[in-house]
Each structure stands twice: as C-alpha cells, then as structure tokens.
C-alpha cells in the first residue's frame, strides 16, 4: 500500500524507565473481546506510554495481564498506525489514497449514505461485525436509526453456540460463562482454549486450582494444546466431528441409564422421543467419524455421566461447523439430562450482582417485522430474529449479495475493526465482491488487509488515546464499573470509534438519536441506572466494584421461562422445560431432534477425495500471540510465532520427506497456501492444523507479508463455500474443515 507517511512516527523505541519521572494512569485494556478488558496500569513519561502492569483492583484480572497487553506499546506506536483519514485515489484494490480531514471523510460517507438511502432504501447499508467490542452497540444503533437491519455477524464466534443453548435450555451463555469450577468433580474443555483466550481473566486459574484440589480434567480437541497437556484424559477428536461425539455419548448415557431420571421427568420435554432417535448413534458408529475408539467414547460417557458434578467449557469448535446447531443442542441436552444444569459443580446460570445494568445503546425497541423481512441474508432464519445481538445478517451472505444481487445487492459495506479478506471464507469471492461493491468504508487503528479496496478509511483511537467509554464486566468474572482514562493524546487526526458513530449520526441528520454528538451526554445517559455521571465515576480512578450476590442454584422455573429476543418475546422454551424435542424448530421446518451433519469434505463424507487429499485440515481461532488478523506487525508478538505454520505429526511429515521447519504447500480442493511445517507430536497423524489471519509482515523483524489468495497463508481460501453444503441451515455457521495434501515447497515455492 502506498500511503504518504511523512508524519508517521518512528516505530518502537527502546524504553528506559527512569522511575522518578513516570506517571501512572489506570485504564482498561481492549485488545481483545468480548467481555470487559483487564484493568491495566499505564506508566507515562514525557507524554509517551513506556510501561504497563496489571491492575490489582480489577476483579476481572486481579493484577494479571497477558502478553498482548505487554506488547501493546509496540502496537500503539507501530509504523502501521493510521494517522489521518484517507480517500481512495487509485483503482479498487490498488491501495492508493490521499489524506482528507476527519470532517471531509464524514461528509463523503454521509453524502453517499443519504444518496443511497434515497435511491435503494436504507437496507442497502450493511455493517460487518468486529470481534465483540463495546463500540458495536453504537453502530447497531446507527443502522437502526438509518433504517437498515443489516448488522452482519461473522458467524465465527459465540453467537452460534448462544443460539443452540438458548433454544435448548433457555440460557444463551451456557457453556461459555457459567461453569462452576470451584465445586466441579470433572471439568471438560471441549473445543475451547482457556489459555489463548482470556488467560488473565480467571477461568484458567480456576481450572488449575480445581485440578490442584483433585478435580479431573478432560480435553476434547484435535491437538494437545497447553490445556490438554494438563488434562487427565485427552480425546484427540477429528476436527468438525464434535456433534457426532455428543450424540454417541448421549447414546451411552441413555442406554446405560446413567442420567438423572428425576430431573428428566420433571424438567425435560421430549426425552421419550430422543430415546429411539439416539439408537443409531452408537459409539461404534461414531468411531470412524470422530477418529476416537468406541471404548474411549464409552469410557468418557461413563466418566461424565457418573461424575457427581461436571461442567463443560464449550468453545469455538462448535461455532465453525455445518453441524453447529445440532452439536450445541446436543451438548445442552447432555448437560441437562445428567443433572449438571444449574447445580453445584455443573454448568450454572450466573447469579446477578448488586450492580445495575447500563441503559442500552442499541435501539432494539424500534425493530419491526418489516425491518426483519429486509435482512439481506438472515444469520438465523427470520422466524428466530432478532437474536441477542439484534437483527443480523450473515457476514458472508452479505458480501455474496453484492455479486448475486439476491435478494438485493448491498451498496455500502462498512467494516469497523474487521477484515473480510481474512476473516470469512472464500477470500477470492470476497475480493470480487469488494471490487464490485459501490462504496466500502474501513475503520481501524492500523492498516489492514481489506484497506486496499476501501473508498474511505477512517482511523480511530486505540484504548490509550481516549477517555471513554466506561465499561462493566459482564461475564460473571467480577462486578466492576470503570471509566476509561486517557493515557496519551491521539497521535494523529482521529477520534474514538464511539465518537465516529456519534459524529456520523449527526452528519446524517440523526442528531436526536446521537446525543447531538456529545459523548459525555451519551455516557451519562447510559449511566442513569447507576445514579452517577461519568465525571463522578472518574473520581474512582480504578472503578467501582459491586458486591456479588450469593450463588443460587436450580433456578429452573425462572430459567426455562426466559423470554426470547424475538419480537413476540415468546419464551425460548414453549413448554417451560428443556427442549430435548424442539417444537419451535419443528414448527419452522427444522429437525426437532439433534442429528449429525458431515462437514462438506471429510474422510467419511467424501472418501473419494482421500486419494488426492488424504489429510484433514482445520485452523484454530486463537493463538498465544495474535488476535485474528491483527498484531503480526508487533515485533514482541511476531518473535513468538514468526512464520505462518501448520502443526503436523512428525510421522506424517517424514512420510512426505518434510523436515521440521520446512516450507510446505498445503493444497485443498479449493486452493493452496504456503506455510512452515512445525513438527507437533501431539496432533492426530491424519490431521493438519493451522491458524487464521495471516497476511501481515513485520518490518522490524524483516518478515514479509503474504498474498491473500493462492500461494499466501490465508486459510480461508482452502474451505468450501458451496451454498448447499457449507452453511448450517439454522445458524449459518461455516465449516473450517477440509481435506488437503501437504508437500515440500520447491526452492521457488
């Protein structure tokens, strides 16, 4: 990309910490999502952030931090920071821009959106989802004020799980937030990674503490990540087959009668229909699909079924598979029928604290059926809309509409903190859509991989360059309210994400809905329930911690009556019981009982591909060093994972003449990437694992960037996007499993 960078500051500098001149300012981190960031003490010297440490007062992280926070100064001062708004001057994809002012950039966007609203209707605007961040409600508010339902969720994290759990047990966050580790006899980490995701926020320590007092730990995942290395039992499952495993476990538990018959008769609906349905899903049936021996499946089923208390941490593996809705519903059923729902040591529904809830920024009360009918590609079918994040289209389907014109072509896409070129599947098609799209706006703190196609680029402040918003901890890890404090002045002509959406709202003529652009009023509005203003909150530099309420278990009558987020507010569970047999699904044409759906490409689904592509490929969502498609330009991070990689079993590699550290070509039926092979003794020999989000170089370490398409390191080009096979029909989850062959790269690649 060519951007005039005469005022781009020098990159990372060696930090000298003459402690006498340092000034400490507390704030909170927001490098990752989705819950409130960790409390972070920032040390400033001569107007420059020189050092960070964990904030002991924060109940979220209790003085701990992760490596990304420690590297955040290099991110803040990186040469890749966007310092001023840009307007495209070259062709789309060429990456030629010229500088415009903040106000000019807002005018260009507002004029275009008003023109398109007039010409094509407000639904011609779509906004893509970033990783869950607190600025998200602001652009959802903007969409609603504009009249568009098209918030487009990536479908790669959390919401797919939340949907399956909500419509099975009435609790969207079950399996993610509410595990009662302190009292569990057995803890199951299933397709999740508490090490690479939120290590300082307590779950990891709680799991290790539980293990130290004698709790058993089981890890279900294809490779031995560090959490699995601590487990008493590791089940190295084939990627994307978790749903088959749950069904086989249910088969054992039901046929061996190791379920909680009393709970089932009192609180479950349709168990009698599950019993015959589950018979075909035997452990022997699951063995070739999951790659786990039947006796191991039986062993685990008995262990889980017979444990006095057990909790499951269900992770991202359940979001990125065509079997998503089935697999999650089956996990919900498993938790319920074994008596592990909202009981000590099980998966619990966190008890509210004494902390009030802020007034929402979203305008959900304005949703109408008419708006929902206009979704360009509903993430969940319209009958299930809106869901917990509001009305939503699927990210990929939105981009696809630009090419197909079905049901109508979106005309403007705004991408705040998200990179469609590396985050969703089939990057080739995504780039075609970006080429054809009428107007594309990128909003980010640094240059990103989608920027070359942008018409306007909006730079925004990092968490260190703004004094808002306030945040509350939501995930049951604490009860904390804190105002952000500004650490340094912005390094260029930009404002925060929050201010951007307020300012654009005003420019569009929606000032009434956007506090007339006054961020302080916006904060005070949200704080009304707390009875304080943002200024008063600032008098508590490290925030306010509220008393948690004692845990209350077995809140079944309340949980099972939870009103849904649909316009009707009808409860998720029409019978007021766990929906083993799901009448809501049945009424809307979906299978009322969880079934097994194969990935589009797998050894058992497409054996004919095995001769050419004998290995299973998948990618992991998080890594120790990176945040999706970001941070690879940060030297402290890049030193930990310098090159794009695959993990490969040494035997599998040697059979192909591949040495540890060799560059290899990984080819699927859809494309090929070039990455480094790293020997990994703890991975299934029939499976290859990689990491998504590679594109960026790191100048300081002399490491190049990588092409987005064939020959690069972008895993998304390897997967199927077949409209008939690559989408879960209920939650639009897209698979991250395919078949590949690996060969040593030649000297010239």
């Amino acid at each position, binding site marked *: 990309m060519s951007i005039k960078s005469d005022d781009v500051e020098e990159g990372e500098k*060696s*930090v*000298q*910490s003459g*402690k006498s001149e340092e000034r400490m300012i507390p704030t909170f981190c927001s490098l990752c999502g989705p819950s409130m960031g960790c409390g972070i003490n920032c040390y400033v010297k001569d107007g420059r952030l020189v*050092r*960070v*440490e*964990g904030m002991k007062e924060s109940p979220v*992280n209790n*003085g*701990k*931090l*992760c*490596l990304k926070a*420690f*590297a955040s*100064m*290099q991110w803040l001062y990186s040469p890749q920071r966007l310092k001023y708004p840009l307007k495209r001057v070259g062709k789309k994809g060429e990456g030629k821009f010229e500088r415009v002012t903040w106000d000019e950039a807002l005018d260009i966007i507002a004029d275009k959106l008003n023109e398109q609203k007039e010409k094509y209707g407000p639904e011609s605007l779509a906004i893509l989802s970033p990783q869950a961040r607190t600025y998200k409600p602001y652009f959802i508010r903007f969409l609603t004020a504009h009249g568009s339902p098209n918030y487009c969720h990536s479908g790669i994290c959390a919401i797919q799980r939340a949907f399956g759990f909500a419509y099975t047990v009435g609790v969207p966050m079950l399996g993610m937030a509410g595990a009662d580790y302190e009292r569990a006899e057995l803890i199951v980490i299933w397709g999740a990674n508490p*090490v*690479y995701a939120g*290590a*300082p926020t307590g779950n*990891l*320590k709680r799991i*290790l503490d539980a*293990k*130290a007092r004698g709790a058993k730990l089981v890890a279900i995942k294809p490779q*031995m990540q*560090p*959490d699995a*290395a*601590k487990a008493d039992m*590791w089940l*190295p499952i084939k990627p994307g087959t978790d749903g088959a495993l749950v069904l086989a476990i249910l088969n054992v538990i039901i046929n061996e009668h190791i379920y909680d018959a009393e709970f089932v008769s009192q609180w479950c609906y349709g168990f009698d229909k599950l019993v015959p349905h589950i018979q075909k899903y035997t452990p022997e049936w699951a063995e070739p699909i999951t790659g786990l021996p039947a006796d191991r499946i039986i062993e685990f089923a008995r262990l889980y079924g017979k444990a006095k208390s057990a909790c499951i941490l269900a992770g991202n593996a359940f979001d990125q598979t065509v079997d998503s809705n089935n697999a999650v519903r089956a996990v919900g059923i498993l938790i319920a029928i074994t008596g592990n729902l909202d009981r000590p040591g099980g998966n619990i529904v966190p008890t509210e604290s004494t902390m009030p809830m802020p007034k929402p920024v979203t305008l959900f009360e304005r949703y109408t059926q008419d708006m929902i009918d206009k979704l360009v590609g509903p993430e969940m079918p319209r009958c299930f809309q809106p869901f917990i994040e509001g009305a939503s289209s699927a990210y990929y389907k939105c981009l696809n509409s630009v090419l197909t014109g079905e049901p109508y072509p979106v005309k403007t896409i705004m991408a705040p903190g998200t990179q469609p070129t590396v985050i969703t599947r089939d990057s080739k098609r995504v780039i075609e859509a970006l080429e054809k799209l009428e107007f594309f706006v990128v909003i980010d703190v640094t240059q990103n991989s989608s920027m070359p196609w942008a018409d306007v680029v909006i730079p925004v402040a990092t968490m260190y360059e703004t004094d808002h918003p306030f945040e509350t901890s939501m995930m049951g890890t604490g009860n904390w309210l804190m105002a952000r404090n500004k650490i340094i002045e912005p390094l260029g002509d930009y404002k925060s994400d929050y201010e951007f959406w307020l300012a654009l709202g005003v420019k569009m003529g929606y000032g009434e809905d956007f506090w007339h652009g006054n961020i302080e009023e916006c904060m005070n509005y949200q704080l009304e329930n707390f009875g304080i203003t943002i200024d008063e909150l600032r008098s508590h530099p490290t925030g306010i911690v509220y008393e948690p309420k004692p845990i209350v278990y077995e809140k079944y009558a309340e949980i099972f009556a939870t009103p849904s987020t649909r316009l009707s507010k009808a409860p998720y569970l029409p019978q007021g019981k766990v929906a083993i047999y799901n009448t809501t699904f049945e009424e809307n044409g979906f299978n009322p009982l969880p079934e097994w759906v194969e990935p589009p490409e797998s050894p058992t689904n497409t054996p004919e591909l095995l001769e050419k592509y004998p290995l299973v490929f998948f990618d992991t969502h998080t890594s*120790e*060093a990176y945040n999706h498609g970001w941070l690879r330009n940060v*030297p*402290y*991070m890049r*030193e*930990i994972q310098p090159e794009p990689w695959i993990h490969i*079993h040494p*035997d599998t590699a040697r059979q192909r003449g591949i040495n540890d550290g060799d560059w290899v070509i990984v080819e699927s039926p859809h494309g090929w990437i070039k990455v480094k092979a790293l020997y990994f*003794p*703890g*991975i*299934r*020999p029939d499976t290859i694992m990689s990491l998504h989000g590679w594109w960026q170089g790191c100048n*300081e*370490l002399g490491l190049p960037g990588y092409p987005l398409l064939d020959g690069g390191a972008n895993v998304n080009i390897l997967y199927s996007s077949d409209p008939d096979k690559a989408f879960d029909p209920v939650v639009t989850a897209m698979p991250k499993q395919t078949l590949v062959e690996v060969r040593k790269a030649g000297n010239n690649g």
Partner: protein
Amino acid sequence: MSEQYGFYYDASRCIQCHTCEVACKSTRGLEQGVKWRRVIETWGGEYPNVTRTFFSLACMHCGKPACAAVCLTGAIIKRVEDGIVVVDRDKCNGCQDCFAACPYGVPQFGADGTMQKCDFCVETGREPACALSCPSEALNFGTLNELMKMTAGKSAKRMEGTTEPSIITVGSIKVM
C-alpha cells in the same frame, strides 16, 4: 550472604502462555531477538499417549554460577547481599565464554555483543515483571526461604544441578 533470591516454578501450572517472556521484554525494553526469559517445551511418549511439559527459563542466579567462574573480565558478579547474579556490560568483552559455560543456555547477546540476562529486575527497583504477571501463578518470586514456605504441602524441592540453581520446583523439570 543474607538471603538468596530465587523463583518458585510450578510446572503443573505453567501453560506456555508466554506472558512472562513478553512482560520481561516489554518492561525492560529488550531489543529484537534477545530473550531474558523464554518458555520452552518438552514432548514425551508416542501419539496418542504423549506428554507435553513446559519450563519458563531465565537466569537461575545459581549458587555456583558457571558463567561468573569463567568470566575473565570480571563482568559477571554474584552479589553477596542477595545472591543475584549481575552483569556489568561495560566490562564485558563479548567473548561468550559464559554462554558456553552455562548449562541452561541463558546468556543473551544483542547488537552491542555484550552479555545480557535477567537481573531479577533489580535495576528497576520493582518485583520481577514475569512473576507479577503470571496468570496461572506458576512463576513466583521471593527469597528461597519464602518460596519454600509458599510451597508448603507440595513436594517442592530445590532444582538439582552442579551450579545449584536458585529455583524451587514442583514436579520434574527438563531444561535441555
């Protein structure tokens, strides 16, 4: 010596998150390519019965530091008051004999060619950033006596080695 400082490392709690590594680099402003602390791993067994263990490796401020013993310029000194092994980089001639002598591969050499390594953050006047930040509480800092008390009830022992590393461990550690 009054009190030897050291680290207590609980291998059963280390999850190779690399936080200690980057906390060290960031807090001390280390240059690219230099690591005063790094988390290494050891694989054992055969799939599927594999084991994977981690060790957060930095200078162990040994009771009998081999590095200091071979240092001809007198740049490496074991402090009498707290047993901390420090380097005077102005005196170092960059011969790297210390690297050859250290059984753990600790000494690091950056652009200026002189030896650098963990100094228990004495230069900053604060507790070591690595131990302060460890999210799983695998790495802890204190005097050896304090650390032994911290491990009460666990089968902790001082790490074995000819150089007498000032490390208290639970479980067996493989370093090289």
